[in-house]
């Protein structure tokens, strides 16, 4: 009897594995990337970035970065080149702590990787995007949070991170796009009507301090504008809110009286882009990638981290 039981068990094991079956769900859907693929993408990114840093040349970055993050990094490399400085390199002490891969029915595909840099004490919440099947994975956003900042837990369905539409405000005080617009409005004007619906976080305070310092310059009219770009990446958090990657464009315009020239201190990014200073008027353009958390319910949107820098300068006339 025992032998019979063993024979039945063996037969079941042999016959039962990987039984061909007709699939009921023929939905056109794909997980953005497999785990091994994420590892390969990150390894390639680090290798190319390391080469770019060693060469102090942003050109290789265009093979692994795109959009705002490429503009910010190129600007940063340009500043380093002009000021003959070393570019800040990635430390070797990097740890991949989380990967969020949504599902898609069409391109573009994207996923989020959280990388901890223990030496610098920051977490990089990076978005990699593949715009079409023939294109490589490129880094499109990389806001940094402090190591002690808690990133909200992401909601999953069928093993994949759940996305939120840019204009989907269900369950939140506002949609990710509305939050981005309101956030930009508050940055531009502390007295804007949106100020009551956006949290007064450390990024807003830091930007206001910079603005106040520029406005304090003698014989200079300073104006600043903020504009939110279209939100492309947002994930649903477990509390029903959203974690949105928002790109904000900041434009600082300096107008000086005739016969005057405004210069910046040695080593500053402004000095690198406007080495001759501004006579008449000049503009500096910045891009800031903000990790914006819109809590579930009626909570106010707030920034958890950012990554930004000057991307262009125009000394005007």
């Amino acid at each position, binding site marked *: 009897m025992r032998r019979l039981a063993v024979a039945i068990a063996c037969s079941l094991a042999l016959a039962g594995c990987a039984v061909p079956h007709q699939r009921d769900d023929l939905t056109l859907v794909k997980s953005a990337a497999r785990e091994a693929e994420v590892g390969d993408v990150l390894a390639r990114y680090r290798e190319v970035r390391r080469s770019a840093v060693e060469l102090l040349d942003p050109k290789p970055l265009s093979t692994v970065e795109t959009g705002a993050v490429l503009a910010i990094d190129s600007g940063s490399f340009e500043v380093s080149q002009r000021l003959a400085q070393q570019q800040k390199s990635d430390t070797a002490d990097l740890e991949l702590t989380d990967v969020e891969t949504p599902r898609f029915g069409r391109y573009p595909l994207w996923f989020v990787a959280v990388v901890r840099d223990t030496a610098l004490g920051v977490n990089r919440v990076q978005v990699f995007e593949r715009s*079409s*099947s023939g294109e490589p994975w490129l880094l499109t956003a990389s806001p940094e949070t402090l190591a002690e900042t808690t990133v909200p837990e992401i909601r999953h369905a069928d093993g994949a991170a759940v996305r939120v539409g840019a204009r989907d405000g269900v369950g939140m005080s506002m949609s990710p796009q509305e939050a981005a617009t309101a956030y930009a409005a508050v940055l531009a004007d502390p007295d804007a009507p949106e100020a009551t619906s956006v949290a007064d976080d450390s990024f807003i305070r830091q930007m206001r301090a910079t603005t106040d310092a520029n406005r304090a310059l003698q014989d200079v009219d300073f104006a600043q504008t903020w504009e939110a770009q279209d939100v492309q990446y947002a994930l649903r958090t477990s509390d029903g809110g959203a974690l949105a990657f928002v790109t904000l464009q900041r434009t600082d315009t300096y107008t000086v009286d005739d016969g005057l020239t405004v210069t910046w201190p040695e080593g500053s990014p402004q000095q690198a882009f406007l080495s001759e200073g501004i006579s008449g008027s000049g503009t500096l353009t910045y891009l800031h990638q903000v990790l914006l958390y819109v809590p579930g319910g009626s909570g106010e949107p707030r920034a958890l981290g950012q990554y930004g820098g000057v991307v262009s300068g125009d000394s005007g006339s």
Partner: protein
Amino acid sequence: MRTRSGWALAVLGVIVAVAGAAIMVVLGPDSRVTTGPHAVETDAIAVVTAPKVVRWADVQVDVLAEVPVRKPIFIGVANAVDVQDFVGRTQRLEVTSFDRPWTIRTRDVEGLPNLPGAPTALDWWLDSSAGLGGASISTRLPDQTVSVAILSVGSSNLSGLQVTVAYGVTGGFAKGIALLLLGAALVWLGVLLQRRMRRADGVDDLGEEIVYVYVDEHGVEHEISAEEAADLEVVEEVEVHDADEPPPPAAAAEPAPEPEPAPEVDDAEEVVVYVYVDDDGVEHEISADELAEFEVVDDDEEEGR
């Protein structure tokens, strides 16, 4: 109830065994069914299956695509999201339905006369191959929506394309054997279970018929019902076995009943035998007519003579 379970198990075993044998016969020792080569009429540079054409998962599929004059050709299988994006703007022949062994419907889709890039440079193919004059893949269909793509590489097209398809189950023949063995084991188990239950439950549970018989004063047996039998005294119980059923063990057999005295029979048709005993004591049967010539010595009737 447990007897029925035994029967059910045995029947299930037969079904499983037949299924296993069928798999073995259909797939054969190489565990697959091959069809082709089939000509596919097209002058496009891509032949792809529409997203919902490949409906099976965990099926081992081998596809061989051949083109004449050693033209470069590529064949690959990938998630349909990737394939549709890759060939979305390209002139192609789309396979809109496929039935086994080889019945396909196709439609021509207009588009650009070239692919957006070299298919060999892409990393999302689940399985792919390229070659001159022919290329083949052998893959197990995953549990996701996939498309098969046959692509022309370089400046040539797919005119003269011939496709051979083989599909089956990895180790299917061995699995058929396993099912056959499993079925046989289930049958054996069912029979074993039945025998055990028969022994455990006794004769009555096996549905044997009990016949109640009343023997009258003339020794004639009359069959009566169980209710009538309850009113009568039970004199004797006799166990009768079918001819093809082995008798019960000797230890369980009861001793044969003693013959009872034969009742008197005054039946008019009874035959009387007359016997003449000669000097040597040998008996000779004689007729009633011859009886007058002899002296009657004894009138006792002897039954059976």
